């Protein structure tokens, strides 16, 4: 493992990361570190560059400038697929599911991917009892009914299924893009209370983009505040909350 942070290994180190869309500097000279096993929250107002930064780490967006080191390897020029295979897994803000497959098959698909079995033409998937068992266990953990087609699940469970598919890949770095967006205030707590204990128990290094400061303070170890593509402040949730600059810019929601 690479450099040591405050008592932990650094799993991701980004220096001078930049992404431009034409004239818009979505992410501009961002330096960041993510420590092994921590839950890092990335907050900021709309258009601050949070999702773009997350997608730059996952490989969904190319990096225009700067370097990204993941577990001592420079992954800046690697594509989405290579980074996913290295264990950098992104979960979508708007659930990206396999709509006509059952929840069980969505998770099984992720497991077959992890086990490199997706080019097996026979036998049928029912002949993989261990994969089925693991998929059922994951769905139980995330409290998702297994036989419903993904398209028929309510929104909260669709969000959970999206995360469950990412989790099934045993990520080394899990990137959650607003796991509670579009979910009612009441459901937000339920969704996070389902996801976060699993992440804690499995010690999965996670970066979460989130708007809700209550969720951020409750669940994250460290916070990065972004504004207009730049890092405005970072530290523990308490440090960030007490920073007057942060309050001025964010107008807490």
């Amino acid at each position: 493992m690479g450099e040591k942070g405050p008592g932990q290994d650094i799993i991701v180190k980004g220096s001078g990361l930049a992404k431009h869309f034409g004239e818009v500097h979505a992410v501009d000279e961002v330096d960041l570190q993510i420590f092994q096993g921590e839950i890092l929250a990335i907050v900021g107002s709309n258009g601050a560059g949070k999702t773009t930064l997350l997608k730059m780490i996952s490989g969904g967006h190319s990096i225009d400038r700067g370097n990204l080191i993941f577990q001592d390897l420079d992954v800046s020029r690697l594509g989405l697929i290579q980074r996913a295979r290295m264990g950098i897994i992104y979960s979508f803000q708007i659930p990206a599911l396999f709509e006509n497959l059952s929840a069980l098959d969505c998770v099984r698909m992720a497991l077959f991917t992890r086990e490199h079995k997706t080019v097996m033409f026979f036998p049928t998937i029912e002949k993989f009892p261990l994969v089925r068992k693991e998929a059922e266990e994951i769905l139980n953990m995330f409290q998702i009914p297994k036989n419903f087609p993904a398209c028929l699940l309510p929104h909260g469970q669709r969000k959970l299924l999206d995360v469950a598919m990412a989790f099934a890949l045993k990520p080394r770095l899990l990137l959650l893009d607003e796991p509670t967006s579009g979910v009612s205030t009441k459901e937000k707590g339920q969704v996070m209370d389902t996801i976060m204990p699993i992440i804690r128990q499995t010690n999965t290094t996670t970066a979460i983009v989130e708007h809700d400061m209550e969720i951020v303070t409750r669940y994250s170890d460290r916070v990065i505040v972004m504004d207009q593509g730049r890092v405005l402040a970072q530290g523990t949730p308490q440090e960030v909350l007490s920073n007057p600059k942060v309050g001025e810019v964010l107008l807490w929601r």
Partner: protein
Amino acid sequence: MPRKFSFPLIIGLLILATGPAYFPGFTIYLLTYGMIMSIAALALNLLLGYTGLMSFGHGMFIGAGAYTVALMMKYAGVHSFEILIPLSILTSAGLAAFVGCFCTRQIEIYFAMLTLAFGELLFVLCSKFYGFTGGTDGIRVKMPTLFGYVFKGAVDFYYFIFFLFLLCALAIWVVCNSPFGKAIQAVRDNSQRVGYLGLRVMKYRLIAFIISGAFTGLAGVLVVSLTGHAVPEMFQVFTSISIVFMVILGGHLSFLGPVIGAIVFVFLQSWLKPLFFWQFFLGVSIILLVIFLPGGVLGGVSIWVRKALAKISS
């Protein structure tokens, strides 16, 4: 097989297995042709229903299979199925790999148009190379033998086709329900997410295209053995559209839909052909089908049966 299909499936298989005992000769011929086209329709549905790619060029694989047989007979004197079938499957798979490298980079209408273009290209090549392919006259083909066995009549050949049909249907069903089958369904439903899982979407589209092409090529071998004549029109759009129609007619949302579609299409075509404007009636039936039975014959029938059962039980 899904449980809901098991009873109709057994009845259907029994009819096909015992058909030669009570059906007249021409019906046997049509059933043989229907089962052959079922293989092509199932193969196309692997692409359309399971991978989400609409091919308007599958006729090229029927043509590839048929012309492999015709050319091997004409120039190499090979007359046995045990050589011609593997060779044709290889030829069609090779063609699918080549064409697929260009087509599977695209999706939707662009994919459909590229496959259509390749089919027409092969049609023109086959028509113009008169000296080699017989041009628009085509090449006559004798019924091949099987390990030295000479097919003595329509019933013999019917059971050979029945066996191959069962084998192919089973093989395609296993592929559709294998981890690869789930992967192509995932590609169909959300190709972006498949990339984020760490899989190359194009690779899965290409493999599905090759498998589909190989099975359609096998159908080409059997068609030309049945009809006795390889013609360039086999490559052409009408053949391709016919296979698409079979899939839509039966229902692309179910595994067995294309089989029903192929058999119904073959009988429908045979009844309508004596009419002067038979394509007109075929067109009308497509319009009616898409409007009133969007799930195809199998989808529509299963809805009617479900409604009838619900009425009886209430």
